[in-house]
């Protein structure tokens, strides 16, 4: 009967390891990272098994202590939460394996608190995804955020400042969300998502409900870095240590996007969301502005991590735009992009961390064609990921765009379609710029250096996670029909 307890196991694994790591860490500091690998590996295993059993048996509602709502709190393991848990835990597992050497280099002596906090943050993220209770979700949101602020503060000299800024903005966002939940509670008298969604249609058009919706979308929009609430993101991702960014960037904004999916498509439903004001369209337009803004800003950056951070602003826009389309194609495209983007961004931030590790910088202007000789496999992984980001078939990134395009055309939404196309071109500009530097000799410098460079590939603990993630994009590309078949079944309407 392990299946019925899986939702709890996933969250509890992280809780357990967030305690175990300090306990063992006091004794032997170097045990922290292996323990974190075991913890995230177990959680990833549970999520994979959980999603498999969801496909066989359907959703699981898990009541803590046997107390049914509205008295107790429940975890709901349905298609959406199962999929998100699967994505974030698997990616986190690879990132944590990868962080071994980088963490020793970038913040020596702080591994134990770092990994303990990482486990705590993952607990928060998983809790947000799995819980079936809106207030409970807020609690997990704060756990994840507080751990996240600390993790971001470990990094460059400017990192604490960036983390502090994120803390202020993020707390404001969390508070707005909580206010929204409060409004809904006063109207409906319940915090349980399933109960509340059954009751809300009675209150369609009530000012409190509309206000609650606005507060929640804005509050979570901050966490998801939805334009124009993205201001905290570029600095945080740039100045945090490479391992921190690689962990937070692929996961954090996705979980916030999950909450938007849950609120708009499940809790309210599209009809109710758009009853008074066409919120889905407004959110979609904001997402579009974010897509273009993020891409243009990414082109303007010369620091790779900062470029990738702006690219995240842009990519989260795709996901939210797919949500705003509220049709099966858009939904499938958005969720497929959750998976694709988590893998791509993790791989890219891991590679930028690797370059920092060996070269001491990750400034695009200083890249040259010796990298091709020194790190052939890493650069191959980078190339695959970059081409997937640009969205060329048969790589995974193409297909999320394909489904999003189908979704926009199905809604006759030509503006959104144009944004998808233009943004792909902008992606090509900032990724091919790097590929040019890595694979071609600089005409002004001559070719001697590259020819003399010795092969100096990264060790397995870094190379394997990066390569597996990058080359899985090819597999996902060819297998996407299966994944999308599952995702289309999750669509609630």
């Amino acid at each position, binding site marked *: 009967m392990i299946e019925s307890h899986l939702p709890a196991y996933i969250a509890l694994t992280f809780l357990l390891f967030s305690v175990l790591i300090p306990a063992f860490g006091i004794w032997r500091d170097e045990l922290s990272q292996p323990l974190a690998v075991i913890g995230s590996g177990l959680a990833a295993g549970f999520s994979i098994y959980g999603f498999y059993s969801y496909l066989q048996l359907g959703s699981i509602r898990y009541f803590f202590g046997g107390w049914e709502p509205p008295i107790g709190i429940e975890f709901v393991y349905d298609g959406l939460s199962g999929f998100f848990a699967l994505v974030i835990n698997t990616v986190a597992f690879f990132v944590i394996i990868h962080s071994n050497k980088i963490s020793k280099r970038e913040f020596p002596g702080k591994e134990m608190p770092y990994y303990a906090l990482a486990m705590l943050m993952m607990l928060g993220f998983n809790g947000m995804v799995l819980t079936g209770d809106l207030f409970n979700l807020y609690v997990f949101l704060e756990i994840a955020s507080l751990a996240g602020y600390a993790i971001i503060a470990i990094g460059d000299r400017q990192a604490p400042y960036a983390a502090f800024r994120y803390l202020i903005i993020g707390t404001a966002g969390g508070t707005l969300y909580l206010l929204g939940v409060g409004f809904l509670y006063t109207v409906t008298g319940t915090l349980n998502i399933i109960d509340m969604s059954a009751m809300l249609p009675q209150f369609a058009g009530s000012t409190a409900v509309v206000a609650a919706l606005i507060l929640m979308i804005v509050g979570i929009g901050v966490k998801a870095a939805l334009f124009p609430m993205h201001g905290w993101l570029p600095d945080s991702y740039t100045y945090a240590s490479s391992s921190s960014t690689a962990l937070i960037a692929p996961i954090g904004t996705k979980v916030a996007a999950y909450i938007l999916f849950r609120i708009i498509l499940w809790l309210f439903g599209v009809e109710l969301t758009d009853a008074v004001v066409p919120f889905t369209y407004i959110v979609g337009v904001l997402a579009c502005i974010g897509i273009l803004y993020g891409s243009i800003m990414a082109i303007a950056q010369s620091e790779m991590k900062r470029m990738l951070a702006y690219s995240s602003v842009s990519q989260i826009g795709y996901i939210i735009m797919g949500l705003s389309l509220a049709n099966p194609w858009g939904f499938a495209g958005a969720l497929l992009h959750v998976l694709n983007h988590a893998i791509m961004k993790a791989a890219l931030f891991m590679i930028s961390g690797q370059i920092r590790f060996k070269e001491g910088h990750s400034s695009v202007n200083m890249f040259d064609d010796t990298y091709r000789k020194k790190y052939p496999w890493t650069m191959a992984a980078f190339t695959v990921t970059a081409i997937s980001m640009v969205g*060329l078939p048969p790589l995974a990134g193409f297909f999320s765009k394909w489904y999003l395009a189908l979704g926009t055309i199905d809604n006759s939404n030509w503006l959104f379609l144009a944004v998808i196309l233009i943004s792909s071109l902008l992606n090509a500009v900032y990724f091919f710029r790097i590929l040019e530097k890595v694979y071609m000799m600089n005409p002004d410098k001559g070719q001697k250096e590259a020819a003399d460079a010795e092969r100096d590939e990264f060790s397995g603990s870094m190379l394997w996670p990066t390569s597996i993630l990058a080359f899985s994009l090819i597999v996902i590309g060819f297998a996407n029909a299966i994944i999308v078949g599952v995702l289309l079944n999750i669509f609630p309407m």
Partner: protein
Amino acid sequence: MDLSLVPLLAVLVSLIAVVPILLSSDKPNLRETWTILAAFIKFGLVLLLVPGAIEGKSVELHLVDLAPGMPLALNADPLGVFFAVIASGLWIFTSFYSIGYVRGAGEHKQTRYFASFAVCLSATIGIAFSANLLTFVLFYEILTVATYPLVIHNEGKEAINAGRKYLAFTLTAGLLLVAGSAMVYIYTGSIDFTPGGLFSGIELPHTAMLVLFIIFLGAVGVKAGIMPIHSWLPAAMAAPTPVSALLHAVAVVKSGVFAVIRVAGYVFGTETMGNYGLDDILIVIAGATIILASLIAFAQDNLKQRLAYSTVGHLSYIVLGVALLTPFGMQGGIMHIAAHATLKITLFFCAGAIYVNLKRKNISQLNGIAKSMPWTMAAFTIGSMGLAGIPPINGFFSKWTLALGSLDGDMVIPVIVLVVSGLLNVGYFFPIIYRAYFKPPEGLEGYGEASPLMVVPIMVTAILSVLFGFFPNLFFGLYDLAVNISLSLF
């Protein structure tokens, strides 16, 4: 004999060859053996499909689903086989020629060169055999990416800028193709190439159809070199000459015009094209491109640039043939794919031989070179005459059929365009021949022909062009194929 896997193998063989090519990068002779081997096997596999194609049969193969209800599917239909025969056949000559060229010119990064070339050929055959729009998009984009390392091969400033321009144009085109394909799917519920098109029985507002057509025109027009979106092609002449020869005279640009035929005949359908007046747009664009490109060709002193503009003009012959919407027009267009391929590859081969041998790129430097390089210049003369449409070389025949096609559709202006263009072709090719044969040579003492690895392919393609002009059906029934295809579309 069961042929169902042959299309897949024909696509894969050069892709698989990439692995041994990369592994034997230290042993040039072994590495080139793989290229030659893959070229011959590929051509052999394609030939297996020819008898069926002449009878109008297709070989279909469904692989995995790329998206729910949209499989990665290959369909070796007569049109696909026609294109595949030309592309894979000319790859053999180009392979030999490439070896001579890159060694003669002492090119760097030869492994990357041969590996990219092999991927390009896989993508081209994939384009030929794509059964639906999504599969087509897949191979079309792979071709774009695989050609990029060849365009920037020299890695100088000029090459890098050409590469950027190339990507900017082709990636935009690829995105338009994605958008267009998605729109076709939403409007018609299908993305399978079907003779006669997908829009029969589907009423769309005139503007919607027009927008969709313009999107597709942008998508396939870039590679087909229609004006004003042709300008990547002359820039891409920064690539080594064999690349220009095969890719920019055969594979890439012919994929573009092949796509025009696919889109016009198998997505929109000739009837829909006529009903919505889409053919008129195409005729105007193609006609203007033919004349303008020929005029611009006059102004080019760089030999490859002149050939590039000549290519732009001749590609639009094919587009024009499609746009006429008559069986003869379609047939002439399809025939011109073959004719232009053999003729232009000959001319580019000559330009490359001259460059490797004499390090001369400009027409003004070619005085009297026929004395040093008699075979090369003989081939050049044949190629020029063919493109100018002088019988009996094969360019004449396709042009004649095109003229018949336009008269068949009661149109006179296209005939005038063809005649004027023929004169312009004479105008920009014959000064080159005149210089080579009748002007006194300058500083050519001690120079002979280029290496046999280059001269033999040049002679063979030139002879093929002549034979093809006399006996259009001699090789693999290409003429019958063209007739069958054009009849199946009306």
